[in-house]
């Protein structure tokens, strides 16, 4: 790799953009302008209060060349997977209006829009039902100097289309940054199951934006296995009547990890349902953050929205910030939210030990049971067992637990 130019993230954003279709240049210029005006977030930015991005904002990175997300599964019949650069060169009109559909991005998402070089477009046309998962892998930069990658993925699912997307964020050395944006557009009645596994040692900032038409269903399961600094945002815009989303997450943190999950569900249309369940096991000196917002707009009558975050705090030196909240402007709604931070149940622990299970093993069993319930909701069996394996790899007595489950 050639010796690349290192700059702070904000300094690397150009003043003008002269390649690509005009609409993309406009998007990039808009993002760059936002960044010049607002800068990158700091502790004083409400939504970034608990995310320690200062050193990252002040560090210098070189942009990583040509290491976009790669497709690691076969492309199922009926589905097209194309490189974004290639489409932008040959048929840019196909993508017009489909990037940044959620409005002008800010902060790191704006940085991605201004800077991304390549990515993938996964298109599942109307009526195409795909059983086999489509899997893409993001391998973080592996250079010895600090590099930043801007993975970008667009998923379009037409009316009645169904797909499963698995994304893995792996590799990435300490100090390397991946700042990703994934956008998904679900047509009427479309269904998408989206599995995301974070197991990179690098710095990871990621955002998923989902726009949902009537009666569509989006189900996200994220498993985060630590991270020096990980910040992951999911936003679902429920724009068509009867759409539903289910956002689930499991995170295990240890050492000096900082893991930060944010969700935002906007109920814009009536009769939509959303449910969020995030569970974390927080050990060592790590910090875990959950911040979930549900906004029910005035016209979104007959909304049903649930939000739950439960944490197991396994050490005195670990920290958890949890903040589920609801903003409701409609009156005919069913909503619930709750958060707990606790230790393992001593009665359960004693029961297992009194039957002969050694203490450490019993602790591990209860810990695993706590997060496994999240992975259990993944309906595709091979995917589910892979995610179980990922969890078991990080839990003490993983082999023994596999043996008895």
């Amino acid at each position, binding site marked *: 790799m050639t010796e690349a130019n290192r700059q702070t993230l904000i300094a690397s954003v150009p003043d003008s953009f002269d390649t690509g279709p005009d609409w993309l240049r406009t998007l990039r210029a808009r993002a760059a302008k936002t960044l010049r005006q607002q800068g990158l977030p700091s502790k004083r930015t409400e939504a970034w209060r608990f995310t320690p991005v200062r050193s990252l904002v002040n560090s210098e990175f070189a942009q990583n060349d040509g290491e976009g997300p790669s497709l690691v599964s076969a492309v199922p019949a009926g589905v097209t997977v194309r490189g974004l650069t290639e489409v932008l060169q040959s048929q840019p009109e196909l993508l017009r209006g489909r990037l940044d559909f959620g409005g002008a991005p800010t902060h790191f998402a704006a940085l991605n829009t201004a800077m991304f070089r390549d990515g993938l477009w996964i298109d599942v046309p109307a009526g195409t039902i795909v059983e086999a998962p489509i899997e893409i892998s993001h391998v973080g930069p592996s250079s010895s100097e600090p590099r930043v990658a801007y993975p970008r993925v667009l998923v379009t699912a037409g009316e009645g289309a169904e797909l499963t997307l698995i994304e893995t964020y792996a590799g990435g050395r300490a100090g390397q940054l991946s700042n990703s944006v994934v956008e998904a557009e679900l047509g009427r009645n479309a269904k998408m199951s989206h599995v995301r596994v974070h197991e990179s040692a690098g710095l990871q900032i990621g955002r998923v934006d989902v726009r949902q038409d009537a009666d569509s269903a989006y189900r996200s399961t994220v498993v985060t296995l630590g991270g020096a600094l990980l910040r992951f945002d999911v936003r679902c815009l429920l724009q068509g009547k009867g759409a539903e989303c289910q956002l689930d997450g499991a995170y295990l943190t240890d050492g000096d990890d900082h893991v930060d999950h944010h969700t935002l569900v906007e109920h814009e249309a009536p009769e939509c349902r959303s449910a969020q369940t995030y569970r974390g096991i927080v050990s060592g000196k790590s910090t875990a953050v959950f911040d979930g917002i549900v906004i029910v707009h005035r016209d979104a009558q007959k909304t049903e929205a649930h939000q739950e975050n439960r944490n197991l705090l396994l050490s005195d030196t670990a920290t958890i910030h949890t903040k589920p909240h609801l903003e409701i402007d409609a009156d005919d709604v069913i909503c619930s939210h709750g958060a707990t931070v606790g230790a393992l149940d001593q009665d359960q622990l004693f029961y297992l030990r*009194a039957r002969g299970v050694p203490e450490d093993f019993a602790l591990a*069993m209860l810990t695993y049971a706590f997060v496994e319930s999240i992975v259990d909701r993944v309906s595709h069996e091979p995917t589910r067992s892979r995610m179980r394996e990922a969890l078991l790899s990080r839990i003490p007595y993983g082999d023994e637990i596999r043996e*008895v489950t």
Partner: protein
Amino acid sequence: MLKIQDLHVEVDGKPILKGINLDIEAGQVHAIMGPNGSGKSTLAYVLAGREGYEVTKGSVLYKGQDLMDMTPELRAAEGVFLGFQYPVAIPGVSNIYFLKAALNALRKHRGEEPLDAIDFMKLSKKKAALVQLPDELTKRSVNDGFSGGEKKRNEIYQMAMLEPSLAVLDETDSGLDIDALKVVAQGVNGLRGPDRAMLVITHYQRLLDYIVPDVVHVLINGQIVRTGDKNLAKRLEKEGYSEVRDAAQL
């Protein structure tokens, strides 16, 4: 098998057991009866090694070893079993798999090879049939969504799987209908033998018609105030505790 001498136990600084003496020989079944709050479950928990119980005086010897020095899992490995009065539900931990881990931990302690999946399943089927615990329940999460009676049957099923030397059964009969009671009693009697002993805590003499005890004790206010044979239970059933209370000047 079990020798308890002048055992005093406090919970949160409050004396609960106030000088218990109990001697259970191998092959015997002892019953403990007594009013609510007298300390029966406390005694059971202390024997199983639950935290939060402070032994301030006295000793407990099990097969000649100091039981109080052992972790709960070591006691289990040495053959102590507690059937809980209120078995806890453990969502996400499957009944049968946890039991396999427990049984294999006990076998390891005894220097035996772990049971493989097939032998284990065979054994489980046999024992579940013994206490008429439906197969489906053995596979569910531990006690999760079990009815009161199902939980108690599950305790006996687990006991039958683990084949303890000393079984302490804390009100295993409470909440059981008469047919379930017979089934549970059968399970318990099936385990009786010259090398085993049992301590059966109950409020009802009815259970003792099926599990006939060698010795019956009455525990009141943290002390054993009377000891007799099975007829003592019958008398208590008729007359209540007032007569023993009076005699013990409590």
